[in-house]
């Protein structure tokens, strides 16, 4: 599973992208976030304010209950501030 981080989520996790293999049972975006937060203080900081975190799976905006599977591209970012 490919993960992407943008804006201050990238700064806090310390990476723009990574490949991960979450354990069995991690079936939604929300569960993936809970698992990521256990991986270190940078991840915990990135996902501390969930009000300001948005996600996309395979380049579509989704909610925390959206299912994920291996092979997905999952991205995390703050609300857009374009243009």
């Amino acid at each position, binding site marked *: 599973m490919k993960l992407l981080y*943008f804006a201050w989520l990238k700064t806090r996790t310390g990476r723009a992208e990574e490949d991960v293999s979450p354990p069995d049972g991690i079936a939604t975006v929300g569960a993936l976030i809970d698992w990521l937060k256990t991986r270190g203080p940078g991840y915990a900081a990135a996902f501390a304010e969930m009000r300001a975190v948005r996600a*996309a799976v395979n380049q579509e905006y989704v909610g925390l209950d959206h299912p994920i599977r291996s092979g997905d591209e999952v991205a995390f*970012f*703050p609300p*857009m*501030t*374009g*243009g």
Partner: protein
Amino acid sequence: MIRVQREDFDPGAELTALTAENKAVGGVVSFVGLVRDMAAGQPIRAMTLEHYPGMTEKKLAEIEAEARTRWPLETSLIVHRYGRLEPGERIVLVIVASSHRQAAFEACAFLVDWLKAQAPFWKEEETASGTHWVDAKSEDDAAAARWRKPPHEAAE
């Protein structure tokens, strides 16, 4: 048509190219967004626009397609830059051409409001006190919400 690019664009050349040979076009409305030298009352030195390659193009194409279902447009173009930009530099160009000016005005305003709320771009500003990521403005969501169809229409 949509383009996402690092380099600058030429609004006049785009406008001329877009409407050349199409003599059904009566009105062309365009929007150019520029980097301001002030933000939230603070002077800014520059801003950097980060984007999500691939998804950005996809969302812009979706937004453009949505506009073309809502208004009778002859042609349209969205060009959006990313990377570091200084005050006075162009950020985004939206051009909409229609046989009817009202459609062109509405569709162009829709595209600008919608892409600010929906396109995956994030802005980092450089000020005297350092760089910081800009928070989303609730007024941008409100502007995009103006164009949301009421439930009974959306269900049709």
